[in-house]
């Protein structure tokens, strides 16, 4: 008997890049996060071959969830083809053997920065959001120990102060992204940097959402069929961005979240933020076989 027969053959890395103990720890924290929706769970954020701030939190959760049969989609600001999204996607496929896709309907795991796809996610899909700042109380309470105590006491009154001052200053709520939302009637969370447009998509959704901040070492979750209610004043209703009437100049679709493209003449054109939806719409118009699934918004309204 030699030492070689007793040990595993040498490998460059373990399956899914993270070592087994790191994944075990993450899974425990993910289960905890599901058990207490919206509550931030601290975890030992590992080194991954990417700088902090580029989606290391999301990446670690995705790496933990992956298996060879997974189909993985990564978007950055709604686009599948940005450098960051493409590199994360190819890295994920390289270390796990999972298949890459751009199609929301096909994917089993979706990692995203800034957007939730416009097509409805199903119960068999998991959404992983990369979070830069997981603490909704940071603007009103710089001391994080005190902020944790405030979470424990559900002492969220001060969050309305942010909204109050936005209305006083600008006449309406200006919170463009990371709109503080009450999860399951108990914990207030920052829904990543997703726009207001995407917040209603989390409410009573069929899919599981993980939100993970690698630098801040916190992860939290919105399990399927959980209430996610944006904070509002009783006399000032929640409003999504005013994009319902905008039309994408490339695909011709109307009623979705758009990117504004400034033009040389000082005006602007709009194009779909969810690039894959636009691509599928253009393919359909050209007569190719591209299926667009049911969307959260129909004609600019949540359905």
């Amino acid at each position: 008997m030699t030492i070689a027969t007793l040990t595993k053959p040498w490998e460059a890395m373990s399956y899914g890049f993270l070592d087994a103990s790191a994944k075990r720890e993450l899974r425990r924290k993910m289960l905890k996060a599901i058990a207490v929706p919206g509550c931030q769970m601290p975890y030992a954020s590992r080194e991954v071959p990417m700088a902090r701030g580029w989606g290391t939190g999301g990446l670690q959760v995705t790496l933990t969830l992956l298996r060879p049969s997974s189909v993985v989609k990564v978007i950055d600001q709604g686009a599948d083809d940005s450098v960051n999204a493409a590199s994360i996607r190819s890295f994920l496929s390289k270390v796990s053997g999972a298949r890459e896709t751009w199609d929301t309907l096909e994917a089993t795991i979706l990692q995203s920065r800034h957007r939730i796809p416009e097509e409805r996610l199903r119960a068999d899909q998991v959404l992983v959001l990369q979070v830069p700042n997981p603490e909704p109380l940071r603007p009103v309470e710089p001391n994080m120990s005190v902020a944790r105590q405030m979470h424990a006491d559900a002492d969220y009154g001060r969050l309305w102060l942010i909204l109050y001052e936005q209305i006083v200053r600008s006449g309406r709520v200006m919170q463009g992204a990371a709109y503080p939302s009450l999860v399951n009637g108990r914990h207030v969370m920052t829904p990543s940097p997703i726009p207001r447009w995407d917040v209603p998509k989390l409410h009573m959704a069929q899919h599981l959402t993980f939100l993970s901040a690698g630098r801040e070492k916190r992860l939290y979750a919105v399990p399927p069929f959980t209430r996610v209610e944006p904070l509002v004043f009783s006399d000032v209703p929640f409003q999504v961005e005013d994009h319902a009437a905008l039309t994408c100049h490339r695909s011709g679709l109307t009623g979705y979240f758009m990117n504004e493209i400034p033009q040389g003449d000082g005006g602007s054109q709009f194009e779909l933020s969810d690039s894959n939806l636009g691509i599928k719409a253009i393919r359909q118009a050209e007569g190719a076989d591209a299926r667009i699934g049911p969307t959260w918004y129909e004609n600019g309204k949540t359905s």
Partner: protein
Amino acid sequence: MTLAQHSLALRAPQLMTTPPLLTMTGVSRRYGDVVALRDVSATVYPGEVLGIVGESGSGKSTLLRMMNLEDTPDAGDYRLALPDLPGNLFDLDRFARRMLCATRIGIVYQNPHLGLLMKHTSSGNVAERLLIAGERSFAALRGRAREALDASEFPLDRMDARPIELSGGMQQRVQLAKAIALEPVLLLLDEPTTGLDVSVQALVLDTLKRLQRDRAITMVIVSHDLGVIRTMADRVMVMRRGRVVEQGLADQIFQDPQHDYTQQLVHAKL
């Protein structure tokens, strides 16, 4: 104002007829080797202004912090005549304490940085109090913040300025508006006019006096300035080295001080 209200507002302290609003008995607190309070007892009657005087380090601010439940003593009993909270308030948990402090007790600190969120608007600072108490209507928040700022004689055209941009006197008025926004049963003032120049000090004291007269609000005012105490207080408590050395009606203390230390204090002033 009707005659009945008027006579109520001008009534002398009801030392004999009504039970006290605030009762503190046997409060002691030591920080390491420093004894801040030794067996201090105090009572405050509804509608009365109690002045606490004493040199720096005599324990008067510590006592006020105890009254605001910011600190727990080593021993002692503290009760407010509130029907829903009959027991010793020092036994309350953190959550109940915070609710009590936010809704029933108002405080104005000497240093506005302690009492205000400097980077938020003045009206927002007042609104924060109301938010803690559960108000969730924007119109109501705005209206009540405006009312409270108006009552503390703050210029309303500056209500959305940040406190850091305001003068010291204005900052104290914002603190005062925040303290009275929920119509507390007890208003605590910790050196409210120290650091203000004499004319602004007079204006702030004037506002306090008017509030006291109009709302018959119960106040405890801590100051090392006998002039302030003489203007405001009905009754005076003199503290030295963590003990109460003398207490009585304001005129009595100032005209006929008994204790050596009080005599020195009064004569130093005059």
